């Protein structure tokens, strides 16, 4: 089962895979980021109620979506690492964590900055923002646990266990916070019902989401390459690669 996956368990093949994927992600990110921001900031029509303050949506929603997306992909990598003992999956968990934490931080800052004009207060204990804050705690937990171990191998495995425990708790936390306080406006784009946002605003938003996803991809690939080199620094292929000055 999954025979095509096995060659990438070897570190060198995984390293080359990162190299081949890198240009595609980079191009998508640069293009979508510029188009998305320019379109969102300058060309998208103003909202009739919030006028121009709603433009923050073009980075708040993508970063919120990506913070959840990054955590679930980190948890999937953690499960692969624990079940099939694939070392590269552990390295992937460690590379995704800081990027996910950054996305959550962006979502929190933009949420607060958007909340001030809309609800009149910088921080509102609204369900979505509180879940986002707890998600940031989970990320920081994984990162600080990883850096607390000297031996990198057991550090990776401990971080994977915490990531899996975190992902099991994520829906429970989300449900309980949602139940505890529903102040946030309904979901602007949900897959199920028609989106409550006009198509002229929807397109820049989608482009921004792709741009942020591309960015998460690029930085994760860079960090994964670092982790692989760090872990294999004794191997001849790393020395020869560094010798060539790549």
């Amino acid at each position, binding site marked *: 089962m999954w025979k095509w996956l096995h060659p990438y368990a070897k570190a060198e093949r995984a390293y080359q895979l990162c190299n081949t994927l890198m240009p595609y992600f980079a191009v998508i990110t640069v293009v979508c980021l510029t188009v998305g921001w320019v379109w969102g900031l300058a060309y998208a029509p103003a909202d009739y109620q919030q006028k121009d303050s709603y433009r923050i949506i073009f980075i708040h929603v993508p970063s919120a979506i990506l913070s959840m997306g990054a955590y679930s992909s980190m948890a999937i990598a953690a499960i692969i690492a624990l079940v099939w003992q694939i070392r590269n999956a552990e390295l992937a968990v460690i590379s995704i964590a800081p990027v996910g934490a950054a996305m959550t931080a962006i979502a929190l800052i933009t949420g607060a900055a958007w909340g001030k004009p809309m609800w009149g207060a910088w921080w509102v204990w609204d369900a979505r923002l509180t879940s986002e804050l707890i998600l940031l705690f989970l990320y920081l*937990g994984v990162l*600080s646990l990883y850096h607390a171990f000297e031996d990198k191998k057991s550090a990776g495995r*401990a971080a994977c*266990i915490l990531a899996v425990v975190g992902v099991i*708790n994520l829906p429970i*936390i989300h449900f*309980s*916070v949602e139940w505890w306080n529903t102040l946030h406006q309904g979901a602007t784009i949900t897959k199920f019902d028609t989106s409550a946002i006009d198509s002229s605003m929807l397109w820049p938003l989608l482009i921004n989401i792709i741009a942020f996803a591309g960015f998460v991809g690029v930085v994760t690939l860079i960090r994964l390459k670092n982790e692989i080199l760090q872990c294999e620094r004794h191997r001849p292929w790393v020395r020869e690669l560094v010798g060539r000055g790549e």
Partner: protein
Amino acid sequence: MAQHSYWQLFFSVYSKDVTLAFRQRSEIVNPLLFFLIVITLFPLAIGPEPALLKRMAPGIIWVAALLSTMLGLDKLFRDDYNDGSLEQLIASPYPLSLSVLAKVFAHWTITGLPMVLMAPMFALLMNLESQALGATVLTLLIGTPLLSFIGAIGAALTVGLQKGGILMSLLVLPLYIPVLIFATSAIDTSSMSLAYGGQLAILGAMLAVASVCAPIAISSALKVSVS
């Protein structure tokens, strides 16, 4: 090989921890004292005005319960790790999750149970309504084992580290939030003399899930910390 009797292992690990606790009285008394002190801090901080205290009582009792469980968690695996009996537990023919279950149950009997028994006294301190008393005791009865299970995961992850104490609370507190939300809301609804069965049911469900999944996470975390 002698016949495998899981009960023999469970009871032996459980009674070892409990006898150790009774030999060092401080292990039982400290968390309770801490619970009492934290509870008395709040009226000093926010003023003795009964109506306000009554309103704050569920939250204060539960935050204090949370913190004193955390206090007791650090020693859960630390001593066994230091003197090597944790290795012996791993290298035993019985599954590690069973001995972990016994240890968490022992931890609950040492820190959780006294809290449940003392809860009526603390509720009086915060002059909580009498009908809310039942809810407080019930939520603590179901909630404290849940806190022990989740906390034991954090303890197992950080047992090998010198400065593990603070890190453990950073890992475990976010996971405590759902328990805190449902327990305090159960007490709130009961103080308005409404039915609080729903919140208790959710707490019970969380406890059931934790008692099945937590030992697996704890034993794999212990195996990582020992390696």
